[in-house]
């Protein structure tokens, strides 16, 4: 049984400027770089350049990059808030670039939810009305709207503030409303464009944790945008890294930290305490011929380097690593720790 991925992006270009689509067709050449340069020479802005990836059902897919790298444009292409210049975007197998206007409205009413960096709350509506707005667009009745709105408001921890207006809320509370509104219609696909970037670090961390909790129960297919590598590593199942409109690397947090494809990605990963993001399995090696014997600390494959290190701080020899069932699957030597962690400093 093969189910279509939740989102499939193929050869997606977004070029801003006059006659972008014609010019893009003209300059078609083999590699992305030279096309982009040619476009720029003509005064166009290639904001997204030949993006290709898919997001699986239930996956939390993070897009990360510096500001101006085209993240927002990319997510807006997927939700068709801007018209992509060329390429294909399929949602559950349906090419939404071909979708009619009414189909698009239908999709947005039923299937898609979006959270914005600056919240995008309607200033003239109360919290409850804001949250119920997408339901109103669906044509749901008043009582139904109210009930459902209260449910999601509770989910984001804003009970009791239903009748407040956005201007009366703190930044963190506002984004909770934004999240509640985007969840009101129970969408399958959830877009979040830097939802926590405008918040203070403490509030940000709190909301990240709650977001993970919500996702653990709801299991949406998510595209989450951030410029903060720590946030990306904390939340993501997989991360796509963007630079100048190009997706330069896609991988799990560990892959990004361990095997950055180029200096740009390496630069991001530099300040990350690697010990926390690398697991033992990453540095272990097969057990040698002579079986390890002795009274070893219990190392498991899924352990982070940091934890493992505290466990075997006093050892000078190779330590066996066990999988979840307690079977020995490899060993680590102290030098491997040092090597793995030390590369951070260089």
């Amino acid at each position, binding site marked *: 049984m093969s189910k279509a991925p939740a989102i499939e992006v193929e050869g997606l270009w977004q070029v801003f400027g006059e006659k972008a689509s014609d010019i893009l067709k003209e300059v078609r050449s083999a590699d992305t770089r030279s096309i982009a340069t040619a476009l720029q020479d003509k005064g166009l802005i290639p904001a997204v350049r030949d993006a290709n990836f898919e997001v699986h059902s239930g996956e939390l897919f993070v897009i990360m990059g510096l500001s101006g790298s085209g993240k927002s444009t990319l997510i807006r292409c997927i939700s068709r808030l801007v018209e992509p210049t060329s390429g294909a975007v399929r949602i559950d197998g349906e090419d939404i670039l071909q979708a009619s206007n009414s189909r698009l409205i239908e999709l*947005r009413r039923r299937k898609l939810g*979006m959270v*914005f*960096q600056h919240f*995008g709350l*309607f200033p003239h509506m109360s919290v409850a009305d804001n949250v119920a707005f*997408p339901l109103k*667009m669906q044509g749901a009745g008043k009582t139904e709207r109210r009930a459902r709105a209260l449910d999601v408001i509770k989910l984001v921890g804003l009970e009791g503030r239903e009748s407040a207006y956005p201007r009366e809320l703190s930044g963190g509370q506002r984004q909770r409303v934004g999240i509640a509104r985007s969840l009101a219609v129970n969408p399958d696909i959830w877009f979040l464009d830097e939802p926590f970037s405008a918040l203070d670090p403490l509030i940000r961390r709190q909301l990240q944790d709650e977001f993970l909790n919500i996702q653990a129960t709801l299991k949406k297919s998510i595209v989450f945008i951030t410029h903060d590598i720590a946030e990306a590593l904390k939340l993501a199942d997989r991360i796509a890294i963007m630079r100048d409109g190009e997706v330069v690397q896609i991988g799990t947090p560990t892959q990004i930290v361990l095997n950055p494809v180029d200096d740009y990605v390496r630069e991001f990963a530099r300040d990350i305490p690697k010990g926390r993001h690398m697991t033992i399995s990453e540095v272990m090696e097969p057990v040698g011929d002579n079986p390890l014997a002795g009274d070893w600390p219990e190392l498991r494959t899924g352990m982070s380097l940091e934890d493992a290190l505290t466990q075997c701080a006093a050892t000078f020899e190779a330590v066996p690593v066990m999988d979840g069932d307690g079977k020995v699957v490899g060993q680590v030597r102290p030098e491997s720790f040092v090597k793995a962690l030390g590369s951070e400093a260089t």
Partner: protein
Amino acid sequence: MSLTKGAWAALITVLVGALCLFLEPHVDWLGKWPAGWTLPVNDWISQGLGAALGILKPVARFFAWLLAFPMDGLTWLLSQSPWPLTIASVTALGWRLGGWKMALLGAVGFGFVLISGYWLQSMRTLALVFVSVPLALLMGLAIGILAYEVPRVKSGVNVVLDVMQTVPTFAYLTPLLFLFGFGPVVGLVASAIYAAPPMARNTLLGLERVEHDIREAAIMSGGTRRQQLFLVEIPAAANQIMIGVNQSLMAALSMVIIAAVIGGFDDIGWEVLLTMRKAWFGQAFLAGLVIVVFAIVIDRMSATLATQRKAFDLRISGAIVGIGAILSFIVNPDSTSYAMMGGVAASVDTAVGTFTANNGAALDSFKNGAMFYGLLPLRIGLDQAVLPFTWGFMWQPQYSLWLFGVAIALGAVLAIKGRVAQGIVLIIAVGILETGIADLPWPFVLIGVGALGWMGGGWKLARLITILLGTILLAGLWERALLSLYLSGASVFACAVVGGLLGLWAALSKTAWAIIRPMCDVLQTIPLFVFLIPVLMFFQIGEFSAFLAICMYAVVPMIRYTRHGLISTPPDMVEAAVSSGATRWQMLREVRAPYAAPSILLGLNQTILYAFAMLVIAALIGTTGLGQSIYLALGQADIGMGISAGAAMAILAFIADRLVQGFAEDRRKALGL
């Protein structure tokens, strides 16, 4: 030696000026544009537009007939409704909008109208305003939404709105008079048309300022375009739109009062005009005060729409109306029996009479001083203004030579010090003063303004404004245009100096601002017309009175923008200057003033536009130039003259606007704003 752009512009201008000066005695057409070279633009407009309007006439008459119903109905309602009920309704509305403060304002304001004895006239004015404003609001909203929804028409709409707001008020009236026929409907339509642009502008601005995220949130919620617009974007822009409502109301009131010059409707504007013509200044003053009170009540109440979010208890409003209704049965319904201000009017008359009698000499010498040493030389030049009768001696040709000699010497000194542009500008200024604005040779003006345009906005602007000025020349309106230019120029200059100083003072001292601010507020609320009353009281009809009236009205933006520019220096910059040990004055000169320059330039721009607007109104009390032509055209129902003079006026305003905006933009760019 490499010259700056400014120096080049000044150099070219001064060379053309010098050439004109030498050739003028020999070449007639340099000084005066020959009549044979003008195009009969007036006739063309009269015939062309006359024909077009003739076709529209039946439609317009039908429209007028239709509009007469709500207008007559509302006039009847307001004049028949017992005054306690009306005052109570206004008070109740005030309460609802802004609590007890607004309620009090409504009660006191309309109470004053009652005792002024102008109740009935005021109600007629109010009826006109309240019929025209909904029309204006609907038109404005529709235009604003259209411009927002259809980006292709936006720039076109903006140009039309610009034109509608720069065309002087009187100029609207002539064609409308032709279309709609004599009567109050003209005022009604004129004020609806005049009041629509602010609504349209604010609607567009508000919609454009709706946050991107809010707009996208509406899309992602699955709204149709119409749902997005009406459920999200327009409500989110409500504050800005309400500012539009406020401005629209004020514009409508102003225009309704101005339209009284057509006559035929016994409203408060007519009362002012009538009493002013009869030189009953006490009565004119009183009627003017009624207008001011109206303006303040309407302005402050509608302003709460944009700022206040709280709606006050409707039950109290109901109770107030109830009390008014009960009172209506008890008190004398005849509003005229409450006129108590007749004595006040009389005593104002006597007071002014006594004052002018006692201080006549001082007033006269003030007026003559300003005329002889300021306005006249500026208008006709020192060479003609200096007479035994004015300055005590006769200007001789060799004085001109001396003057130019000194100017050139000083200019040369400046140039040697490296300030070439300033040196040349000094020579130009002296030249203008010697010749007089009204006598400037046209090639010099065209080239000079073109050079300014080149400095402020490049070749494109230079070409545009030179062509526009050229059309005035071709239309045979040149002399009148120069006269208008002279009077508005003199007023703007005075406003810039006085307003700049007041703005500076207000920026330095909180107390000063506490005094100046309410005065600015009131001056900005008063309909243009009313400014004529006080100057007439003291200085009679004439150019000087017009000059004063223009200054009083046009000085306000200069004060406001100067102060605002000076106090809004970013705190970091101030702190950086303080920590470098700057004194208060050093801070002002080195940090605040340069940073304030763009803002001050915008203030100057507003002042210029205000001056042009008032210039036309001031034609009522005796000015020459385009304003007078527009006013005369209205009297003679001469569409060609009315439109062409109105257009010329609008062109002058447009040129001034673009030039100053260009320079302001330059400054902003230089500051990296």
